[in-house]
């Protein structure tokens, strides 16, 4: 039980730490950045095919629905993530209440341990409440993406294309302003890093 409590509090602490972004300067926003916005993150597979004559973009039905929904949301509605984490006043109040809730749960748990007849059931419920509150808060608050950076999966793309293999990785679908000087319709940017930069 103590281990669960410590793990939960550590996770919560890390969550808040990740949000703090202390000492990191706010990135400068370019005019171009204001015009474009990422509406959806999904996955993409690039595969060579010697049997087709035209490049082909295949979109699964479910992905198309998600894309449509994301576009609808981007058109004016707030996304779920934005509605959850977009306001500092609400976040402060919610965090305070969560802190109080965990405090009360902790006190209740401690008292129940000393009460006669406090069974395993009670402790299990207490542990569940704490773990749920912690995971819930972490899930809601955390906006970071754990794991290696996205470009890591694309590092072998040139070699894979040469060998006739496919490569899959994450992709952000970004809506950009129309460029009258460009004749290209869709544009796919692949985050490739040179090996000598030591990024791999």
């Amino acid at each position, binding site marked *: 039980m103590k281990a669960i409590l410590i793990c939960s509090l550590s996770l919560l602490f890390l969550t808040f730490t990740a949000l703090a972004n202390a000492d990191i300067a706010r990135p400068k926003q370019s005019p171009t950045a204001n015009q474009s916005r990422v509406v959806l993150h999904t996955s993409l597979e690039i595969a060579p095919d010697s049997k087709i004559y035209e490049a082909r973009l295949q979109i699964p039905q*479910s992905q198309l*629905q998600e894309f449509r929904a994301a576009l609808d949301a981007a058109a004016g509605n*707030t996304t779920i993530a934005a509605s959850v*984490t977009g306001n500092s006043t609400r976040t402060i109040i919610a965090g305070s*209440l969560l802190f109080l*809730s965990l405090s009360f749960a902790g006190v209740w748990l401690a008292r*129940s341990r000393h009460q006669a007849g406090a069974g395993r059931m009670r402790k299990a419920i207490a542990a569940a*409440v704490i773990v749920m*509150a912690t995971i819930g808060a972490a899930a809601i608050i955390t906006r970071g993406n754990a794991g290696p950076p996205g470009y890591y999966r694309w590092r072998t793309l040139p070699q894979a294309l040469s060998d006739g293999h496919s490569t899959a990785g994450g992709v952000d679908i970004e809506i950009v302003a129309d460029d009258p000087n460009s004749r290209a319709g869709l544009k796919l940017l692949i985050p490739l890093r040179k090996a000598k930069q030591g990024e791999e």
Partner: protein
Amino acid sequence: MTLVVSALGSALFASWLPLQVSIVTVFLFAGPHNWFEFRYFLMRLPARFGKSRNFFLTAFAGIGFLTLTYVLLPVAFRFGSWSEEAWSIVIAGWNTLLLGWIGLLVWLRARQKQRSDWSWFPAVLLAAGALNWFAPLFFSLAIVYLHPLVALWFLDRHLLRTRPQWVRAYRRFILVLPVLLGLMIWRLSQTAPLTDDNGLFWRITQHSGAELLPAVSSHMLVSVHLFLEMLHYGVWIIALPFISSAIAGRERETRHQQFWKPASVPLVKHPRGFPKLIATMLVFAALLVVVLWFGFSFDYATTRDIYFTVAIAHVLAEAPFLLKML
């Protein structure tokens, strides 16, 4: 078996034609279920509050205040200029008042019934408050989906008091519901969104949370919500009156005679009761049901909006009466 077949039928209808069945269900049963619920609460109301005076005064004051402020919310939204964030704070504030009121009721109830242990409740209440401030609109949507389930809790408590031999079968039936809901979600999650190209259909999909959850099929949302609503109406209109009349019939007169008589309400039977007032209130409530039907016939969409706004009163009223049964 009857319960399972009824639930299965409701799930099938709700999945098959969600919008059409929703319109018919609300038209037919929304008003009557409120009347039955009102009558049930009158049955549970003591003739003299006694030691429960503070509890009931807090309950009624809270119901009145929260209903009034809830009804004023759309008015404030319409005539004020609110940013999205400012409005979410207003919603979160109202939800906090609701949670605070429930917390106060629980505290008063715990003082009355000292054998029961409510020491876990502050932690849960504060956690709910935190979730509310993280995502107020989702919290409100959660109330929309959870409220129909409260009726099942009422039925459980009522059976425990009056028909304990039925409780086991009833709880087995309750275990079937998550399976049904899981099947509905599984089958409908990939369906195309419902066509909400007219005002009424749009209202129904919005009520089920289609705007808040754009990535989720609106067909699934409306079907699940409708299924829960059908269960809710079934409990209040069929199950609880049936049990009450069965008990009344067993004790004294024939079932229907006893149930429909205002004299079966304790506030009427009691020597210091209010027979005329209660009879008038029941008749007036029945008239309101008829007015609601007329309203639905003339302008379904507007009446639906008004109904679901005012109906917050019955959602709130369930809290104190359920607490008294715990």
